[in-house]
């Protein structure tokens, strides 16, 4: 089981790494410079895939947490923990690359605009998810509390996506997932899709390897308890 998980993780991560190299080539050599924003628009190709992966990760956390609360399956908790760590990392990338773009486009690193604020809160929720595990009276209690936090946190995902429509803010509207269909040039769309694929594969691979860490820890705990 350990070897199978390891090779699956390695395979997905290597495919993701190869796709990432291809995406970097597209970003810096192939896609034309966007007319209005100029070269700083290239941050979009790391910012949007990171946001997608963060949402995917927190979706996995919610589903796995639900399964853990329902069935009490330890593997679901391990999967949730692995996904939460990756989701938090990609949220940090979103919250770092966004302000770098914002400084050039808006003239400020940060503004308490609805989408930015909600994304920051989402990041804090998953920091809380990590902390709750260690702060609880017992590991089992920590896992249950964390599962509840994971499910509640995922409710922010549709809220963040819809915030640009519901609230008046500075954040640009989606250029792909909008009601009128994609509005960006095809080269921009192709580069973005390549980035989405690359980061998705990379995340799934690394999450699988991270799950392997939890499996190994679980085996060790069982041995020590025996």
């Amino acid at each position, binding site marked *: 089981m350990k*070897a199978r998980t*390891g*090779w699956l993780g*390695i395979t997905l*991560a*290597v495919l993701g*790494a190869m796709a*990432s*190299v291809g995406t*970097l*080539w597209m*970003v*810096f*050599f192939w896609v*034309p*410079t966007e007319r209005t924003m*100029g*070269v*700083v628009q*290239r*941050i979009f190709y*790391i*910012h949007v895939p*990171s946001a997608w992966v963060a949402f995917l990760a927190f979706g996995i956390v919610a589903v796995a947490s639900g399964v853990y609360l329902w069935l009490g399956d330890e593997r679901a908790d391990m999967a949730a923990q692995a996904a939460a*760590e*990756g989701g938090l*990392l990609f949220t*940090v*990338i979103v919250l*770092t*690359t966004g302000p*770098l*773009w914002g*400084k*050039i486009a808006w003239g400020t690193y940060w503004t308490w605009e609805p989408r930015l604020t909600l994304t920051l809160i989402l990041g804090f929720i998953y920091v809380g998810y990590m902390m709750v595990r260690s702060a609880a009276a017992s590991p089992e209690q920590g896992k249950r509390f964390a599962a509840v936090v994971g499910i509640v946190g995922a409710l922010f995902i549709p809220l963040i996506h819809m915030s640009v429509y519901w609230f008046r803010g500075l954040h640009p509207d989606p250029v792909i997932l909008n009601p009128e269909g994609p509005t960006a040039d095809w080269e921009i769309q192709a580069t973005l899709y390549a980035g989405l694929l690359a980061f998705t594969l*990379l995340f799934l691979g*690394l999450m699988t*390897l*991270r799950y*392997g*860490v939890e499996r*190994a*820890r679980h*085996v*060790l705990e069982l*041995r020590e308890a025996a």
Partner: protein
Amino acid sequence: MIRRTLASCLFGLALVALAGAWDGLAAQNANLGAQRLGRPYLFVFLAYAIGWGLILGWIVSIARRLRSLERRIDRD
């Protein structure tokens, strides 16, 4: 075996990503026209460097934890 493959992939990816970012940004100089040089380039470089730095850091962290746990399991 898994650790060695992971380390090789990590190293290769880091080299290609750095080379791609550096050469690519330089190559764009020719096509920029009205684009001002300086800050936008620096910010694009910073965004990719921070993003990939964090991802590579996560890879290293996973590999180290996995290696440490596997050692303990093998020892026991």
